[in-house]
């Protein structure tokens, strides 16, 4: 049961500045939420009648609830890293009203039973959790899962995230079947035949540190192949996860120009840090794809600004301390990201790179909603689900990883002075976070 179904009250968000890119609204507006839906959006003080509760949003931005297309909630099987309850609590703090959880759990979410399990109220989710199912059985890359059944059970996309679908034939088959069902195939683009033993980006820094490096080609070659496949398979939907290189970006641009249904996401760490930022073999700088070169970062910033990037996604990848505090090459890949995403976007993209706040909101709302067809979300037009994120774009704060709501603290942004903070997260009309 979702919050939208159980909420029967009303909440008036008054005095805020509404940014709803899908509805082309960027103005002072009041928003009335009722029975889990958006009942009315109107100019200040124009909403008549009373509401059970009011929220004073003066000086704040009111936006559709943020959507994160890429999180690892680690259940089933890895509760030492995160649970659906703790992961969604962190999501709420970060302003995310919906998260899409990756299937590389133990066991892999490759069946209808596990999709149902993820959605049970006992999991304790405080925001909407959308399941992405495995594309192949046990994500072994050999046999496709039952797309039809997974789709019917509510999975919103398929992927073998953490690993790529390497086999050309299997990837083609996945795009064909996905196309028939209007089901996006999400690719973790990495040619693992080229990345054996690698733990960071291949460049001057990896050579200096004596770490084997993943080349940009290992990502770009898979993206290039997938885009070509998507261009020639009717209705195929390809979504490139955590795109990190300028070369891969070129392929995606080409696919988009050819009107192929290709979407992609970038992560806050890939638009904030480069491979040169890692110090002293700190494994909080180890993730896959790795932090790339300065020129890759520049290319991603251009694509964020010019409208090419579809979504910002965190790739929130929690790991227990003992899985990270070890030899860099042996430490787990991944960092947490839910609680810092908006602030990094505002600090880096808006403040430093002058990308408008409205574009940033689009990357957290309308953009991701479009990638996975999340109907009724990503916008606050009347009748939409009452998922709202309210934030203060000027608020300065210091991120303290120790106080994170995630079970894990593996982040390179501990202690960072950031700008932009979530003030309220509303899911289906119910306030799940205020601060």
């Amino acid at each position, binding site marked *: 049961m979702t919050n939208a179904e159980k909420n029967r009250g009303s909440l008036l968000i008054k005095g805020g500045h509404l940014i709803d890119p899908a509805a082309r609204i960027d103005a002072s507006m009041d928003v009335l939420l009722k029975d889990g839906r958006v009942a009315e959006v109107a100019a200040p003080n124009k909403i008549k009648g009373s509401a059970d509760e009011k929220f004073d949003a003066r000086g704040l931005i009111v936006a559709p609830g943020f959507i994160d297309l890429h999180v690892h909630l680690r259940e089933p099987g890895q509760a030492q890293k995160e649970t659906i309850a703790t992961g969604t609590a962190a999501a709420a703090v970060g302003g995310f009203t919906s998260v899409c959880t990756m299937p590389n759990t133990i066991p892999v979410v490759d069946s209808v039973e596990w999709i149902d399990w993820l959605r049970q109220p006992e999991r304790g989710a405080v925001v909407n959790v959308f399941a992405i199912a495995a594309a192949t059985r046990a994500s072994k890359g050999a046999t496709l899962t039952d797309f039809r059944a997974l789709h019917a059970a509510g999975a919103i996309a398929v992927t073998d995230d953490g690993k790529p679908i390497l086999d050309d034939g299997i990837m083609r088959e996945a795009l064909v079947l996905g196309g028939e069902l209007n089901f996006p195939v999400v690719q973790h683009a990495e040619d693992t035949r080229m990345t054996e033993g690698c733990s960071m980006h291949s460049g001057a820094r990896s050579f200096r540190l004596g770490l084997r490096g993943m080349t940009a080609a290992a990502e770009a070659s898979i993206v290039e192949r997938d885009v070509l496949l998507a261009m020639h398979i009717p209705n195929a939907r390809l979504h490139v996860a955590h795109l990190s290189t300028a070369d891969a970006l070129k392929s995606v641009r080409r696919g988009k120009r050819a009107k192929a249904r290709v979407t992609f996401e970038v992560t806050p760490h890939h638009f904030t840090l480069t491979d040169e*930022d890692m110090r002293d073999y700190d494994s909080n700088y180890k993730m896959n794809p790795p932090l790339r070169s300065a020129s890759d970062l520049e290319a991603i910033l251009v694509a964020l600004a010019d409208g090419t990037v579809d979504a910002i996604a965190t790739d929130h990848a929690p790991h227990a301390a003992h899985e990270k505090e070890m030899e860099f090459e042996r430490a787990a890949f991944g960092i947490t990201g839910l609680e810092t995403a908006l602030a990094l976007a505002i600090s880096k993209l808006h403040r430093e790179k002058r990308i408008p706040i409205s574009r940033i909101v689009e990357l957290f709302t309308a953009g991701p909603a479009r990638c996975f067809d999340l109907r009724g979300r990503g916008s606050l037009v009347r009748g939409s689900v009452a998922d709202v994120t309210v934030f203060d774009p000027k608020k300065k704060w210091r991120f303290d990883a120790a106080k994170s709501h995630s079970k894990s603290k593996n982040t390179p942004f501990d202690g960072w002075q950031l700008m932009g903070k979530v003030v309220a997260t509303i899911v289906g009309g119910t306030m799940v976070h205020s601060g």
Partner: protein
Amino acid sequence: MSPIAETIMNPARGSLLGIEHLEAAEILRLLKFARRMNPDKPRPLLKGKRVLLLFYEASTRTRSSFEIAAKSLGAYTVLIQAIGSSIEKGESLLDTGYTARAVGADVIVIRHPNAGAPYVMAQHIDVPVINAGDGLHEHPSQALLDAYTILRNKKTFNGLQVAIVGDIFHSRVARSACHLLSKFGVKIILCGPPELVPDIATTLAPGVRVTRYIEDALRGTDVVMLLRVQKERFAGLKINLPEYIARYQMTPARLKMAKKDAIVMHPGPIIRGLELTSEVADGAQARILEEVRNGVPMRMAILARAVGKMR
């Protein structure tokens, strides 16, 4: 918005994690102090101290040399090897480090197959950590003993040209040597095929150049440093060994292209018939065994520095 600089760690005083961040003056102090060290005339600078030799990877020269150096200075040594210890049972690097501290180690000497392992250790354990070789990263005691050997043969670094031939990519010795020699203005030429000597190697330190031609590397060279092809670290990489031998093996004929008084060095283990011929290994210009001998006084100096006795 980023406080990245704040995260740079502070290892225990006396640690030797790498050459890259060691100042030239400190290197000279170490080299000078090593000249006063003599294993045949023991000095009790480490009397009663416990030196833990933590070897996660095979070693002959480095391990025995550190052990003899420590004992010559009056220390107790304990050798822990991955095989035959709790490491085999899955104990983590840090837990082994905490155990080492708990048993009262005054110095930890660590050899590890993963780059940066000594950094991780030094970040969490307040005992001086000496890097005895970490993955492909650095081998600072080797670079120091090589510098010591060069100075004994060439008197000064001024105007020197050093050619390092072979598997640079997989070599922690090469990385440390480049950092060290570069700090003294030495011209460094790296020579080998692209798979083993990537062009990016020139970014390692000022004064480093890459060539594919052995003649180019040897012309005007004072020191020829040869490296073993480290097949055990190849991770899927393949090279054509007969071609490598044809192009890069050090033979007496090739050695003649270097300066007349050039010396031949090799960190060992040497593979006769591969990176060098027996004639070169056993020839008059070879300093390979002298390097091994010099390892002991050099490591005595490193250990004395670790406990604050390098005075």
